[in-house]
């Protein structure tokens, strides 16, 4: 598995905001807070056995993950979203667990980047 955050997308994000790292920090905070909510929603949906309930949180986490550079996590979310749309996800719990793990890795990477920047 490659790095949780794609460097090119990340750099692009910084550039898009005109190098406003404070805003990027805010954006990351928003991503993390919302991501936690979506992961929780995915867990609940998997436990409840409803494929429909998986669609929206998977979709939501997918799009923000892709924008923040978490391409692998985004891919996991996309796969889950697509199978959830078919109405049948036999391995929902496993997929959600993988997403939760992926999200934790992304969080660690993002927070490490911030700490590094603060130190540097």
């Amino acid at each position, binding site marked *: 598995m490659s790095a949780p955050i794609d460097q090119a997308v990340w750099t692009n994000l910084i550039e898009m905001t005109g190098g406003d790292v404070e805003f990027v920090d805010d954006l990351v905070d928003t991503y993390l807070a919302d991501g936690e909510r979506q992961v929780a929603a995915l867990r609940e949906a998997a436990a409840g056995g409803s494929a429909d309930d998986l669609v929206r949180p998977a979709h*939501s986490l997918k*799009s923000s993950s892709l924008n923040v550079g978490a391409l692998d996590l985004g891919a996991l979310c996309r796969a889950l979203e697509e199978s959830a749309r078919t109405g049948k996800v036999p391995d929902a719990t496993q997929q959600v667990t993988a997403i939760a793990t992926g999200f934790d890795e992304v969080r660690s990477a993002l927070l490490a980047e911030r700490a590094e920047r603060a130190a540097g």
Partner: protein
Amino acid sequence: MTPPGGNGASLPGRILVVDDTPFNRQLLARLLRGLGHEPVEAVDGRQALARLRDADVPPIDVILLDIVMPEMDGYQVLAELRDDPALRHLPVIVISGVDELDSVVRCLEMGAADYLPKTVDPAILKARIASSLARKRLHDAEREAVDRQAASNEVLAIMSRSAFDLQVVLDAVVRAAVRLCRADYGVAYTLDGDAYRVAASAGGTPELDAWERDHPIRPGRDSLVGRVALIGQVISVDDVLDDREYQATPGQHVGGYRTLIGIPIEEDGAVSGVLALTRNEVRAFGDGERALAIGFAEQAAIGIANARLLETIERQRGQLARFLSPQVAQLVSSPEGEALLAGHRREITAMFCDLRNFTTFSESAEPEEVLGFLRRYHATVGSLVVEHEGTLEHFAGDGIMVFFNDPAFQDDHAARAARMAMAVRERFVDIGDEWRRRGHVLQVGIGIATGYATMGRIGFEGRYDYGGVGNAIILASRLSGEAAAGEILLSQRTFAAVDGQVAAEPAGERQLKGFSRPMPVFRVTAGSGGDLVVAETATAAEAS
């Protein structure tokens, strides 16, 4: 606001970002702000529609719409927008992932203008927003043009429907001016004596209206209306509080207005009114609004001119209606009417008819009988005057004087008079018979004379008559006096004029009061013995 790196073509817009993912909203909002736009956020379709339909907040120019959302998704939003005439035109840019192209196609089919990849690229965002904004602006400009045209048409329609009702016209003008020039308050003042008074207003509170009504404005530099009246030109005051000469009147405190524009309502070069528009914020009226306001002031001017014309016509009609047949009253109610009333010399035929034995009858009959008879006599002759298009000069007891060829021209005036006389005599056969049975002998005698007379308004203020002065009139009256019961006597000139149209014969020469020499007199023979009217059709042809 200046879009950074903008090429000038991309004007700032108010963009509604509809996305349930906070990260996406935050990022898009930030990028939009960076492009100089004003982002407005909504977390789902329901909130977005609520924002779009809220009339109390500034309108949205472009919508950035996510598809997958809780509550109400992007498709539902598109369907709602499509069904809402007020929102249908709003450009919608669908935000979509690369894996959602099927959804994009569906959205475009549902009326979306464009789509934006979910992995945001600022350059694409900028281009798409600019293109949608241009589309929205074009639509707005078209709609504004249509609105202005519609309002202008509405005012014109009202003017043509109630051309002479100044109040209706001014109300419509002020209402339209306030709406289209985006003013808070508008007043049309009209000159009344030496001051300008409120004639119509729109948009104001009752207090402000009352204050303006109670404070007529005189020409002078201390007020907007006063200045417009003074110099007869459009005056703008961008902020009354910054204007040294403007006296912040109690009216300004009541109204709270800051920016003003005043347009003269001109009539023949004089300022007969002022159209004033005000805004409660400091925001100068633009060139387009100024041009519109001038157009409305011109419509008000036409309204005022029409009302004045009507006033003149009504006055003249009032003066004339008592003695003119409807056709003639209509004719005289023209711009030349005043000149006709002032006096003019013209060849006319005068017909005078009165009753033989009327004095005896009125002494012997009951007063009610006399009045009843006169009413019938007047009604009969009156309807014949109208039928023959004569001008009734007066009813005086049993005497009736009618002119022909004035004020309306009639080539066959002498023949008309003769024909009307015969008609009176014919009708009188029945009336006379009826009274004979009651023991009264009542017969009509008629005199007709043709010649020049001075015609016009005679009398004094409040009691005018339309009448004439001339020998022909006196002669007609004398001939009527000479006429025996049932006889119609003509002067020589009348006889000559009707020759070949009405059968008549010489009836000798008579010495008449007021005439030094004996006058030749002619008697109408047609109609009295059966060989009635000669060549009715010939005279009609001649008259036309």
